């Protein structure tokens, strides 16, 4: 099997509006990953000891399929994983497909005064 080329790119934590069936709309923090989604992938966010301390997986359903790849809800963890390195891994071959940093998108503060 031909080895795929490792792509370096940062993953951005974005806001995504969500309207629950009941209740007020809320904003989720999500990471969207553009990649082939036909095979199982794992996203591992590494701490300063290189340990996989935040794991998301298509097999577990914590990486959801989208039209362009995968997305995962990181609401509540956005501050914890912001700035850390990540690796997106092809499960079958253990090949690291993408790596880079997790970046929390800055929220622009609108001054109404």
């Amino acid at each position, binding site marked *: 099997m031909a080895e795929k080329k490792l792509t370096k790119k940062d993953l951005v934590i974005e806001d995504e509006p969500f309207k629950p069936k009941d209740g007020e709309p809320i904003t989720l923090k999500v990471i969207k990953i553009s990649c082939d989604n036909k095979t199982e992938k794992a996203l591992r966010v590494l701490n300063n*000891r*290189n*340990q*996989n*301390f935040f*794991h998301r997986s298509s097999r577990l359903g914590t990486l959801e399929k989208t039209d362009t790849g995968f997305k995962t809800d990181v609401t509540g963890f956005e501050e914890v994983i912001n700035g850390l390195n990540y690796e997106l891994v092809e*499960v079958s071959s*253990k090949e690291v497909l993408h790596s880079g940093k997790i970046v929390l998108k800055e929220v622009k503060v609108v001054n109404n005064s």
Partner: protein
Amino acid sequence: MDGIVGLQQILACDAGTLLTTPTGAVAMGFGKDKIFEETDHQPQKVSGNISLVDFKKLMVSGLSHQPTMFMLKKSFDFLNGGADVQVITPKQTAASASEDVMQFVGSYLLGLDFEFVISHEARTIKWMWERILEKAAALTFKDTWDSATAVSVAGVTDTDIEGKNYSYRRSPKLIAMEAPSGASIALTDYQRLERKLTIKSSKAIKNDQQQSIVNFYTVTLEIAGTGMQVADLITLAGKAETPSVLIKEGNAGAYYDKFVFPAFKLGIGNDFKIGDDKRESRIKLEGDISIFAHSFAYGTNNGGAADDSTGITGGTMTIV
């Protein structure tokens, strides 16, 4: 496709170092009975005789025939959350790197109990690692096994993935067994039937993650002999209640492992039996010792090579 049986590697190193620069790494190498086990931990029974599982218990164990002084010293260091552990299965397909790799690091650290044995039959060390994980965390952990990349540790598992090393192999080779130090233990070599020195973690308390918290280690020396004469029994009875003990076991060439137990640490007891076909005596010395009450010395005059600073050729353990 079927999963392939067996475990290739159980390796431990200082906590927090496996995935950066592994330090203090030890692998089981020549050994047997390597097991990983996941079981339900104390399911809650509810009406209808239904078991609800909240936690999974993870256990790793194995017996190594490479019980160097370094491995014994590291086993003490690895107690109480001191180790990262890597467990590797054989390849699960013909593809390269298809081994399942379990890395017990960070929030997956295991608790350790160990048992170091020198007997007339074998020299071994047994590791027993354990913890529980809440069910979802256990599932997430499991999901990492077939995508994690194994760490190869230079000088430990880079030549042989199990960590087999001929120079770390230890076999029984009694040089001295004295109580008190300098005096015979009251059995000649020819009378001795069995001997066994055990140094093991003991009286562990389990925390809420079922990881061992170890405060003591137990030292036990058991010797069985035959043909003791009355004079030998009187010599034995004349020994102090807690004699000093010295044990010296040979390694390769002139190197050796030495164990020095001062007086007041091990209590001595003995049983003697005369029957139709036996005249057997059993001597037992035993004591519990606080977990940090020991020191290790290496190099010349301590059993090892001059340039050995870790105890891989030999060394001396002194109870303090």
